[in-house]
């Protein structure tokens, strides 16, 4: 009986800290989202407006649905491109032996680089006049592209994200490929299955769990993106790259000081992402 209680001593300190730094702030966020708190009016002067902020976002805020759409485009295009490209590279790595370790070491560099800083380097590389990307384009006879202009800003931001996070997919999918035992592949080959058939009917199903974990993690992180876009475009030009997090920043801190409305945005993010959270935990639960 005595032993059964001892777990508390081990778990309590961490649990208390998490309650203080996560649970309380989250509840506090829900509370602020129901007020008209504004940095310029001070804490005491705020009023309770119930769901007024949410009503404002859904009906009046001209950029709410637009930022939703931009986020959606961003998330879907980055994650699918990263998955497909990551899968191809992982399959390639699985085929070779020599030099694999070296290639893998170099491939992980993008995802450990400080995102805000490396994004600024991308801003230099994407510069119209003195960026190296346009220099290379000119070299092969193409004309300059205004990468961070109105039309190309979102695709450019997507490109940088693909650069940064495809390595994550490579690593995960490569690990998944490596965990497939040799026997079923052998059996399929003996039965005369083509390479494509082996991939779609044998390998892919066996990689499913890890692949799903990888995709969910990327979906969540892609949805959360802030630092890369802040350093590259700050949501601009205009609101061309104003994803959800960027919108929170602009409405709450940069253009206006509407903390209440920004909090309502933040609550919506949590609600949108929570099904992904639970799917992720379910996947890991099954495994244990």
């Amino acid at each position: 009986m005595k032993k059964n209680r001892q777990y508390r001593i081990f778990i309590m300190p961490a649990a208390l800290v998490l309650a203080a730094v996560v649970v309380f702030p989250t509840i506090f966020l829900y509370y602020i989202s129901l007020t008209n708190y504004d940095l310029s009016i001070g804490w005491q002067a705020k009023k309770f407006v119930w769901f007024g902020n949410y009503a404002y976002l859904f009906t009046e805020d001209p950029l709410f649905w637009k930022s939703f759409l931009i986020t959606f485009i961003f998330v879907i295009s980055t994650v699918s491109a990263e998955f497909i490209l990551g899968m191809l590279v992982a399959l390639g790595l699985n085929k070779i032996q020599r030099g694999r370790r070296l290639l893998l070491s170099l491939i992980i560099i993008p995802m450990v680089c400080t995102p805000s800083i490396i994004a600024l380097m991308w801003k230099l590389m994407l510069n119209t006049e003195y960026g190296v990307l346009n220099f290379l384009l000119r070299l092969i006879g193409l004309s300059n592209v205004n990468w961070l202009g109105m039309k190309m800003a979102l695709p450019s931001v997507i490109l940088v994200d693909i650069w940064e996070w495809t390595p994550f997919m490579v690593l995960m999918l490569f690990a998944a490929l490596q965990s497939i035992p040799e026997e079923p592949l052998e059996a399929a080959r003996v039965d005369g299955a083509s390479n494509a058939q082996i991939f779609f009917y044998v390998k892919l199903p066996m990689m499913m769990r890890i692949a799903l974990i990888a995709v969910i993690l990327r979906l969540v992180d892609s949805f959360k993106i802030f630092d890369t876009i802040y350093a590259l475009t700050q949501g601009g030009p205009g609101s061309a790259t104003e994803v959800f997090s960027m919108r929170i920043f602009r409405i709450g801190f940069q253009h206006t000081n509407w903390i209440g409305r920004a909090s309502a945005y933040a609550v919506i993010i949590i609600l949108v992402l929570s099904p992904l959270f639970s799917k992720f935990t379910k996947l890991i639960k099954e495994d244990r």
Partner: protein
Amino acid sequence: MYIEKKWRVKKFITYVLLIVFTLFCVFPFFWMLLTSLKVRVDVIDPSVWIFKPTFENYKNVFEKRNLLFNIKNSVIVVSGTTVISLLLGTMAAYGFARFNFKRKENLAFWILSLRMLPPMAVVISFFVLGRLLRVLDTHLYLIIIYLSFNIPFTIWMMRGFIEDIPIEIEEAAWLDGCSRFEGFFKVILPLISPGLIATAIFCIIQSWNEFSLAFFLTTFNAKTVPTIVTAFLSVTGVLWGEMAAVGVVAIAPIVLFAFLVQKNLVRGLTFGAVKG
């Protein structure tokens, strides 16, 4: 003979494509390094690839921009949050790995889901609370807030590493008269130290790279390295060289750290869910 040749060609193409992809991955880092070593006029000339390197930019960022001050802030925050997370997280991980109690898994998975909470969603609360408590722009506040992602991460990583150790080893120690705590410190801790180091490095990398929270919660005194970008946002011309120098100083050590934990990278990226 024909099949052999076809197979070779295929392998060759695979290598070429993999190398192209790798170059694409490495190029921005390489370009940053190159830019940081260029003299003023060459920085905005992308056709210059071979030149006599200069350390002028590095000198400038340390002397004029006082980069050392930001590095000091980052080191304080990163080491503070890492040490506390490892201490509290490993203890909790032991609790989850070695005890059975009601709703254990519910609690564990709730903690796991915290790791996915968007910083943008909680930063508003942290900002308002920090303003009311007058703790914005302090090292301690940032250290505590970084615990919100480092502790869940540590718990899940270390839980896996502890569960990898057979309980019989510990039971033998208990029979010798060790208490649970003595067993934890004398038997478990030495055995999990490789895992502990790997986890520490992951905490260091993610705290060092963290931008959103630091950006909102610091203004001057506790400004960390990633937030330096705000000073360079409207840069034109020559300042790119200095920015690149900051980038090399900030990123090179992190890349080296990442090489150290490469073996555990998959595990770290999935919070111990995939052993890799």
